[in-house]
């Protein structure tokens, strides 16, 4: 019989802080290889197709940026929430509402194609996401309502709302009854960065800039200090005169705005119209990105690229060796488990105790 015992470290280990995401990645790859072997594929080939082949050509690097942009944008916002102990898990809904709000102009006023069109769309997208995120925040502040459940429920509501919008009032009258809006005009499409070599758009730049701004906010400003104090000890925060209520609203609205920006950027740059499904679960995958990046905006950039690769790898594996692209979501789920488990090493030393050793200790104590 073996027992695991945790011994608290006097202070948290800087070494394992840096190592834990890497340990988690390695463990995920090992278990991934086992999974492929169980599916009857050569693990080495499968791993190559999954994690290397999607990076061998320039246009593929563009695709990586396309997928990473929304993940980084959302995860950076979630980091502010989670650091301040606000469990926003409704980013998928905020992304959806941001996409709808940002699409108001290109769908309802397609004849307006001025220079302010794109900036207005982005601002409206951010406002849509932020206001939608304000609902669970206000309910938490005013009525003490559990924000985990309310923010998640609002995801389903937002998706149904999008479904109604594209099938009902905003449906393209010339669209052969397909549930979709009209195509955005060129003026409403977020430009690509290097159109000659691939699809990567300004959304990726937004993601990097957002990560840098939030990094600065968290590391260098009083607001960032407030976020961390309230997150670690709400009581200490109150003594310092910080308002927990305002922090809830701040964290939710920042993350909602970034999710909304991700939504309208994705719709504008990649899909060019609204349709019933606009995201392959970016809002949920971003939760994994946030934790893999250890809730640090710079780490989140790296983590976003890793998770984006898992999406591409899933598609590549399906095309090349007939493994379902659903394995990508299994990888993502496993990764989060390993990240959380490895984080334990930062705060604790782990001791394995066999029953013989335990018996020996007991004998020593009694002697």
């Amino acid at each position, binding site marked *: 019989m073996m027992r*695991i015992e*945790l011994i*608290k470290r006097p202070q948290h280990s800087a070494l394992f802080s840096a190592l834990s995401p890497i340990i988690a990645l390695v463990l995920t790859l090992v278990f991934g290889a086992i999974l492929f072997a169980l599916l009857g594929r050569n693990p080495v080939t499968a791993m190559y197709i999954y994690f290397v082949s999607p990076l061998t050509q320039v246009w593929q690097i563009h695709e990586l940026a396309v997928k990473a942009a929304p993940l980084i944008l959302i995860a950076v916002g979630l980091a502010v929430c989670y650091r301040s102990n606000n*469990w926003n*898990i409704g980013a998928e809904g905020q992304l959806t509402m941001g996409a709808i709000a940002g699409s108001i102009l290109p769908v309802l006023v397609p004849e307006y194609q001025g220079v302010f069109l794109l900036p207005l769309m982005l601002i409206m997208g951010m406002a849509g996401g932020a206001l939608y995120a304000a609902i669970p925040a206000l*309910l938490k502040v005013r*009525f*003490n*309502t*559990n924000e*985990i*459940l*309310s923010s*998640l*429920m*609002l995801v*389903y*509501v937002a998706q*149904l*709302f999008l*479904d*109604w919008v594209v*099938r*009902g009032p905003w449906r393209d009258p010339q669209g052969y009854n397909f549930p979709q809006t009209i195509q955005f005009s060129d003026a409403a499409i977020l430009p690509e960065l290097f159109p000659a070599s691939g699809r990567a758009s300004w959304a990726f730049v937004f993601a990097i800039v957002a990560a840098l701004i939030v990094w600065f906010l968290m590391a260098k400003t009083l607001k960032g200090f407030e976020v961390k104090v309230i997150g670690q000890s709400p009581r200490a925060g109150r003594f310092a005169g910080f308002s927990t209520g305002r922090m809830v609203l701040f964290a939710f609205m920042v993350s909602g705005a970034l999710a909304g920006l991700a939504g309208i950027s994705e719709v504008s740059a990649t899909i060019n119209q609204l349709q019933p499904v606009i995201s392959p679960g970016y809002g*949920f995958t971003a*939760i*994994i990105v946030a*934790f893999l990046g250890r809730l640090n905006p710079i780490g989140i950039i790296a983590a976003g690229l890793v998770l984006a690769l898992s999406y591409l790898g899933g598609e590549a594996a399906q095309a090349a060796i007939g493994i*379902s692209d*659903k*394995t*990508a*979501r*299994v*990888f*993502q*789920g*496993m990764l*989060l*488990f390993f990240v*959380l*488990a490895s*984080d*334990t090493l930062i705060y*604790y030393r*782990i001791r394995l105790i066999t029953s013989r050793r335990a018996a020996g200790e007991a004998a020593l104590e009694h002697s």
Partner: protein
Amino acid sequence: MNILEAVLITIVTASTPLLIAAMGELVVERSGVLNLGVEGMMVMGSVSGFAAAYMTGSPWLGALAAIIVGAVFSLLFAFLTLTLVTNQVATGLALTLLGLGLSGMLGEPFVGHPGVRMDNIHIPGLSDLPLVGGLLFGEDPLFYISILLVIAVSWFLFKTRAGLTLRSVGDNHGSAHALGIPVIGIRYLAVMFGGACAGLAGAQLSLVYTPQWVENMTAGRGWIALALVVFASWRPWRVFAGAYLFGALTIAQLHVQAIDLNSLGFLPGPFYWLLAALKSVPTQFLSSLPYLATIVVLVLISRNRRLTMVNTPASLGRAFVPDR
């Protein structure tokens, strides 16, 4: 069988999975652990229940497989949160994300295949009684199991010594530990019970409610079950009431979506106009009612801070490392 009876029976079928999953989570939370992985364990139960029944032809083996898979799957969560003391909220989310992904992958070969239905019970004589016959004596077996579950959990928590021990672990793990109670061991068992219940609830969806496998077929029911536990302030019979309230709401909006107004001309004016008004609401809005109702109910129940504090297990969600 008249319309009323048919509606009531569908309400029962819609409420049963919520009730079973929420009863499991209630025991878990009473032991001081918050497992947000209900949705993931439930969907794993759906896929394994469907697969086992499909391959063996027996819905009972399907239900059994779902119970085992749910309990084993919950062990992942238990090992991380109880042995490695990871954050319970994050780990529960991880369990849900992994469960949704894994079930999608495992279930792919079964998409589009007709499932095996768990037949309703038929007791000659009793089941044929007018009105109440089918309703009380002709339901699917999992309905009876869900009712037994409420009775058993209620009895266990409040009438047995073991139940008292479990509640003490949830209310003050420090004191329980000091008294020599194996806090971690009890929590492991509670989490596995919750996993088994969630698995069975998932199997109800793929064996009784709609005998087929569809990806993400739990559609947020695991989350609604979590909300029900809060709504019920951690009391078994209130969970029962809550589950039926939500089941009724789900079915009501489905029926409103499906009714044919022309055949209802006989209804008294106000009723007719109410139905006509509801019918004119887009179906997507009706479908979002259960989710919106969950939020409204949570707001109403948590508005009173003091009442919530009194009812919530005091150690809920807090990590515990024994100091030996």
